[in-house]
Every structure is written in C-alpha cells, then in structure tokens.
C-alpha cells in the first residue's frame, strides 16, 4: 500500500513537471501579448508584464483592418475542410479496415507510398495543376487537395480494425444495409476517434501554411498564418514580435475551445464504464 502511494506521488511529480514544461512557453506567449516590443525582446522571462498594455490587441483588431478578415477566412476554410475530411477519411479508413475487396492491400500500400515523398518536389507540379484547374487565388486550391488526409485515413483504419465485429453483425442481422450499418452503427461508435480526427484536421487546416502561401496572393483572401507571416519585413527579418505573438494567441483560442468541447468525447468510453 505504501509502495503504491509512493508510485502515485512519483507519477504526480512527473506529470506536474511535464505540465510546467508545456505550460510555461504558452503562458509566456500569453503574457507577451500584453507587453510592448521592448519588454518582449529585452530577455525577460517573467510572466507578469511590467506595464500591461492592450495595444497589441487594439492594433490587430481595430487598426489592422485585414486581421479580423483573416480570422474569418481561416475559420471558414477549416470548418468546411474538417467536415469534408471527417466524412471521406472515415469512409476510406472503414473500407480499408472492414471491407474485403480486390486491390485493398495495393491501395493501402499506394497510400503509404504517397506519404513518403517529401513535399518540396511536389510544389511545382501541384502549382501547375492548380493553375490549370483555375483554382489560383480561390479556396478550392486549399480544400480540394486537402479533401482527404492519408494520416487520418490510416488512423481511422487502425481504429475500425480494433473494434469488435459483433455489433455490426448484429446490426446486419437486424436488417440494416451495409451502408446503414456504417452510418448508423459504426460511425456513432467511433465517436472518440472521430472527435480526435476532427480536432486535428481542424487544427491542420487552421495552421496550414504551405498551400495558402503558394496559391493565395490577394491579401483579402489570406488565412491567419499567412497574414502573420506577411507582417514580417523583408530585410534583416524584422519581426514585429508583439503583433506576431498576440496573433498566435488569438489563433490558439478557437482551437483550444474546440479541444475542450470535444475532449468530452475522447473520454466517453471511460465515463461510461469506468468512473462510478
């Protein structure tokens, strides 16, 4: 019993230390958003601003007319992209995990192979393609190539492989069609995985840099990460850190909210069976 208590204490110590290591940089960034440039770059590691100011937020939301627009753009792209991805990735993952058909393994390996190519050499061919499809300076250039995400197809595949076949078989005996089984039984059962997937797909659209950078050149269409990048001057890489850090805090908040909301579903299994 004593040994158990000691190991529990040790676990808490490790968790708390790790939490501090993750929390500190975030809190530092948060506090930086209330500091002026000199204090941020002055090498202060303190978390309490010496002369707290809202100037950075005012600059972004009231002075810089494009910034609120960029937030909206990112939100729009990320929401639509996430809905499309969740549907398509889940279908593909399910098909690779649960359906038997000719060529399944080959498709799996082809998808794996597609992930191995370093993106740097695909930039130009993709740009030519996007140009030819007439999608430059439109959100189709981001949503269409990003309609599926191989990583999450594999993630869903692993997930569907893992859960028991009994429920599905029962459903098919009950007369549900195979498609009905998928949408009515399998998908609802995969809630934790779907919530996880949705969070990360949203996150990756929200933070996506390469595609917007390549395909968008009208400032009004810019996404948040692109807008943040724009405010850096060319020479000497002058970065207006107070604005960049404040913008990154603004960009974290929506994701954090989504994570907290969806976190409920990650834990669903435990809630139902375990605790109490």
């Amino acid at each position, binding site marked *: 019993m004593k040994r158990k208590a000691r190991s529990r204490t040790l676990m808490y110590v490790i968790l708390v230390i790790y939490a501090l290591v993750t929390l500190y940089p975030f809190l530092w960034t948060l506090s930086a958003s209330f500091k002026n440039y*000199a204090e941020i770059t002055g090498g202060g590691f303190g978390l309490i601003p010496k002369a707290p100011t809202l100037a950075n937020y005012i600059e972004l939301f009231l002075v810089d007319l494009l910034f609120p627009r960029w937030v909206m753009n990112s939100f729009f792209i990320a929401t639509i992209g996430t809905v499309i991805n969740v549907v398509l990735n889940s279908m593909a993952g399910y098909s690779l995990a649960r359906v038997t058909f000719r060529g399944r393994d080959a498709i799996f390996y082809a998808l794996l192979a597609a992930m191995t190519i370093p993106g740097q050499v695909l930039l*130009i061919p993709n740009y030519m393609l996007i140009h030819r499809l007439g999608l430059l300076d439109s959100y189709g250039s981001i949503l269409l190539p990003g309609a599926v995400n191989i990583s999450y197809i594999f993630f869903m595949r692993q997930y569907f492989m893992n859960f028991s076949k009994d429920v599905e078989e029962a459903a098919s005996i009950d007369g549900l069609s195979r498609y009905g089984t998928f949408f009515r039984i399998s998908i609802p059962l995969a809630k934790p995985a779907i919530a996880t997937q949705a969070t990360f797909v949203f996150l990756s659209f929200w933070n996506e840099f390469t595609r917007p950078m390549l395909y968008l*050149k009208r400032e009004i269409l810019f996404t948040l990460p692109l807008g943040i990048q724009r405010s850096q001057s060319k020479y000497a890489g002058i970065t207006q850190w107070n604005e960049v850090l404040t913008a990154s805090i603004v960009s974290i908040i929506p994701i954090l909210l989504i994570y907290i909301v969806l976190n409920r579903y990650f834990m669903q299994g435990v809630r139902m069976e375990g605790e109490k």
Partner: protein
Amino acid sequence: MKKFLLLALSLMLLLGTVAGCGQAAATPAVSSEASVSAKASEEATPEATPEATPEATPEAAPSLEGKTISVGRWGGNDAETASFAKMLAGFTAKTGIKVEEKVYTDYNVQLQADMVSGSAPDVFYVDAYMAKFYINQGLIAELDPAVIENDKFYKPLSNAFMLDGKVYAASKDFSTLALYYNRKWVKDGEVPTTLEDLLNGDYLTNLKKTLPAGVASMTYNIDLARNLDMMQTGGLDIIKDGKFSNLSQAGTVENLKPLVDAALAKKIVTPADLGQGWNGDAFGNEKTAIMMEGNWVLGHLKTNFPNVDFGVVEVPTYKGQKHTMVFTVGYALNVKAKESAAGVAFIQYATGSEGMTTWCSGAGVLPSRMDVAAAMKVAEDVKLAPHVAGAEYATPWQKGETLDIVNREFGNYFASVVKGETSLEEGMKKADEAANASIE
C-alpha cells in the same frame, strides 16, 4: 507475395492512367509553352524595346486607360503597406490603369511556380541579389533607359539591374549600412574612423570596461551580405570565372582577418550571443553600444525603442577606402507580361519622382534617384545622411548567378570560424568546395 505484387502493379497502372490523363493534358501544354517561351525570350527584347521607346510613352497613349495590370510584391510593415496603396492610388488617378496587387510570402518559391505555370504578374519586385539570375533565365524584359531615366539613379543602384549595358529593372529604394552608437556610452566623434583601429586597436576593449555588465561593445553579423565589401577590398572578387566560389583566395582571407581576430578575442559578439534576434534588438535593448546596420533599423528604433539616444556615422574605412553595402529592390517587367505598355507605365510612375516621393516619404526608405533624394532633403537628416553618403561608393549586394549558393555555404562555415572551431583558411576552403560542388 506474388499476388500482392500483381495487385500493386495493376493499381499503380490504374493510378498511372488517372495521373496520366492529368499529365497528358499537362505535358503537351508544357512543351508548347516551352517553345513559346524560348521564342518569347529571344523576341521579347526587340519587342519590348519599341513599346518602351519615348514615342510610345504611356502619357502619349491614352489607350492604356481602363487597363488592369498585376503587380507582385512582398508584404511589409503597416507604413509600407499604406504608402504602397497611396502610390497605387496616385498611379491610377494619373493614368487610369488599375492595379491588382499580388502579395508574395515566399518569393523564390512562388515566383518560380508562377513563372513555370505562366501565372506571373506583369510587374514584380526583384531584389538586386536575384536580378542577374532572373535576367539570365530570360524572365525579365529589357527596359528603355530613357523611359525610366536611368541616369538619374545613383550609379551602384542602376548598375545592380544592368547586364551587358542593358537595363532590366528600376530601383525603387535602397538601404546602406552605417555605424550606430549609443550616446549613453559613446561620445560623438569618439568611434575610430578606420576599421583597423576599431577592430584591432584597444578602443573596444577599453569601452567594454566602462559598460555595465552584460553589455557588449559591439555586435557584428556573420552573413556574407554584411561582409562582402570588406572581403573584396583591393579589387578582389569572391566569384571566379563568372560563377565559382573563390572565398578562400589569399586576399579575401587576409581581408577578413581583422574581423575574425576581433571575434575570437570576444571584442565583438553576434546578437545571438546576447540572446537577441538581430542587431536592432540588441542595440534597442541596450545590450550593445555599437552596431552596423541598415537604415531600416531607424524606423524600428523609433517605434519600439523610442528612448534610446543614438548617433549614426559612416562605416569606418578599411585599408584607406570608404566602403559599405547597399541593398536595393527594383521593379521589373515580366517578359510574358499581358500588358507590357501599361506595366512600363507603372514602373515609370513608381520609380519616377512623384511615385518615388510618395513611397519613400511614407515608408521611411531612401529614394534611389538623386533628384528625389535632393528634393526630399534626405541628406539634411543627420541620421540618414551617413546612409545617403554610402550610396555613392557602396558595394551592391549582388554577384552573378550563384551568389545564393556561395552565400549559403559562407554562412554555413563562417559560423564555425568565428567560434574558433575551424581556422579561417580551412573554413573558407570548405565553403568553396561545398559551393562549387553544388554549382558544378
């Protein structure tokens, strides 16, 4: 296993046909574009010239009214964005030509992609550093020197965009390096006027004794862009046979010695050594008493460090010669511009006295034209004057078609040299080898 291979192969073929469709459509187009572009680059020069002759100047051609051109640039700070917009408004009011802005975030990658797929803007920014490369790739149309009044520009700035006596772009503004000192610790006129005295004498060591703990006497940069002028003193060239890296030649190594010695003796440190991102922050935060920076730092200090009291002087001479670096960006006309005449009109306006005055006074940058500089009285500003003076004798940050590569390898190895991990000779030799292996 056999079955798998068969499946994989058939799938690849299937995908191949899908992809093939996309490519079949793309391939002939590419090759036809290739032949067109090859012709275009041959013909562009004679074609562009008559259009750009004074007889056909935009003012004399009202037909340009209502046309729309696209202009590619990279983003800047708020002041730059605002004055660019103001300049565009002035241009449209005067000529009736509308401008569609294209803002680049990763210039080299995006311009390359744009050029390949034929979606590049009519007019775009070109950094002097990349200019010769783009010219030789046949991407930039020749401009008529009379139309852009090439002789009104400072010589190093117009030269930066010329090749074989032909003009390819017009400089929009420039920056030179100068020496900044913090008045709290350094008196006016106190800084030695030669690099030899500054770096190798006792000045910095003595200064250090008067400074608070943690404050350096002087910061420096390890980039080639900051040291090229010093390295080429005595008529040397870091590029040999037009493209090969020649950093390890005896003269260059000898020229760099004072800097390396001072760095090894810790008389000078890099901003990173102080935990600072760049000179401007180290100086603004009063972690260093002296730095050499470009005039872009003036706006930075004013906005973010208004309380620092400082003076500016020209870069100390080296081996008896005045020297500094100059950085400039120009407007270039796309060889395949859809609206060449309107594009030329834009370049003419933006780098003419009206457009340049709007742009430079708003963005706080220095005008490339001597007449505009005189009219704006930039030389009367004590802090700008040393920068303006530098325009006469500065070395442009530009060197043939391979500078990008030489610069990269210099940065790669010089970092080890100033730390004493590699000798200067050895480091430069390695940089040469690495660069030349890539250049082939």
